[in-house]
């Protein structure tokens, strides 16, 4: 039984949530050697597929504003949770930890999207455990 369970877990883990090709494609698009943290305000959330894009205005110390475009996930599951284009308002403060795009412009992929109160997306958008109405929200996984 034990052996079966261990093997089962391994087998199940082979079904990565993200197909292997997706990680490979992302590391060709974004630079693992160029991590960054962007702090800015949302000017637009393009709720599109296959990935959504957050347009952020990042203010420099000298007061100038740079526009960044940051890749996030498909909005389709969030929409089933009731998230709309009005949920994350224009002007919302966001801290985004991610990696810069390799193609040379102000684009990045966001690993973590953190709101002013420290919560990350999904939970802050009313996310909860799988599709079961009224289920209690999960705790955010601890950052290691």
């Amino acid at each position, binding site marked *: 039984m034990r052996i079966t369970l261990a093997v089962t877990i391994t087998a199940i883990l082979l079904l990565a949530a993200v197909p292997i090709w997706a990680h490979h494609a992302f590391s060709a698009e974004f630079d693992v050697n160029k991590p960054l943290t962007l702090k800015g305000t949302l000017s637009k959330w393009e*709720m599109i597929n296959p990935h959504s894009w957050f347009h952020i205005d990042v203010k420099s110390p000298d007061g100038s504003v740079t526009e960044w475009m940051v890749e996030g996930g498909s*909005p389709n599951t969030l*929409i089933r949770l009731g*998230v*709309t*284009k009005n949920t994350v308002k224009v002007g919302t403060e966001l801290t985004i930890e991610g990696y810069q795009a390799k193609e040379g412009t102000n684009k990045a992929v966001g690993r973590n999207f953190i709101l002013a109160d420290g919560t990350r997306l999904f939970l802050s958008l009313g996310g909860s455990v799988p599709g079961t109405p009224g289920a209690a929200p999960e705790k955010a996984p601890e950052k290691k």
Partner: protein
Amino acid sequence: MRTRFISSMIVAAGLVLTVTTAMAQAPGYRAPRTKDGKPNLAGVWQAVNEANWDIEAHSAAPGPFYQLGAAFSVAPGLGIVEGGPIPYKPEALQKKKQNFTNRMTLDPEPKCYLPGVPRAMYMPYPFQIVQSTKQIMMVFEFAGALRTVYMADQTEAPADSWMGWSNGRWEGETLVIDTTGFNDLSWFDRAGNYHSDALHVVERITAIDADHLNYEATIEDPNVFTRTWKISFPLYRRIEKNAQILEYKCVEFSEDLIYGHLRKVPLK
């Protein structure tokens, strides 16, 4: 003699009445009903006009590539816009003209992008109306585009999309569809007629006999037009036996157009 005269006057009056009401949604043809009592608009339909080239009246014209000669030239059309030219704001008309000049790079159609509404309704390919109680779907052959019309459980658009968010209701024989939630990326035709994300389309679809629908749409977009305006045209049933929507996935056909300049070895 008098009886015959009166009879023929009655017939003539009847004909006049029929002609004037043929394209309106007033009492006329009564479509067969679905089991839940609604007019049955199900089937494979197609517009037969030149609106996809240009929804306004236009002459025949050369196509953009001489290599395709007459085969890809612009067919003439009387247009589907009612009552005069599209009422653009002056600056918007300038943008339309720029769109026209640059149409081969700006038109979403060659890129196999979704056609939007109302353009999907008059592209020269069939679409299928699938009708259930709570939803009506329109499945388009081109690019596998889809419209979902919510007849119940209606909400606002959660986010912008190419095909918009449609809420529908029945008014007698007429299906009335109210669509908002558009992005600003689709065009009305190949001639550069365009809209903003404030586009609001109200369509009225009515069966006028067993094989024809009357289609009308009012277009509203305060960012682009000075007033609402209207298009109308018939939709024809594809009556051949076993008519069906076929798979017309065109992404692969558009990739060299979109990404060709990013090849390692440029295309000749």
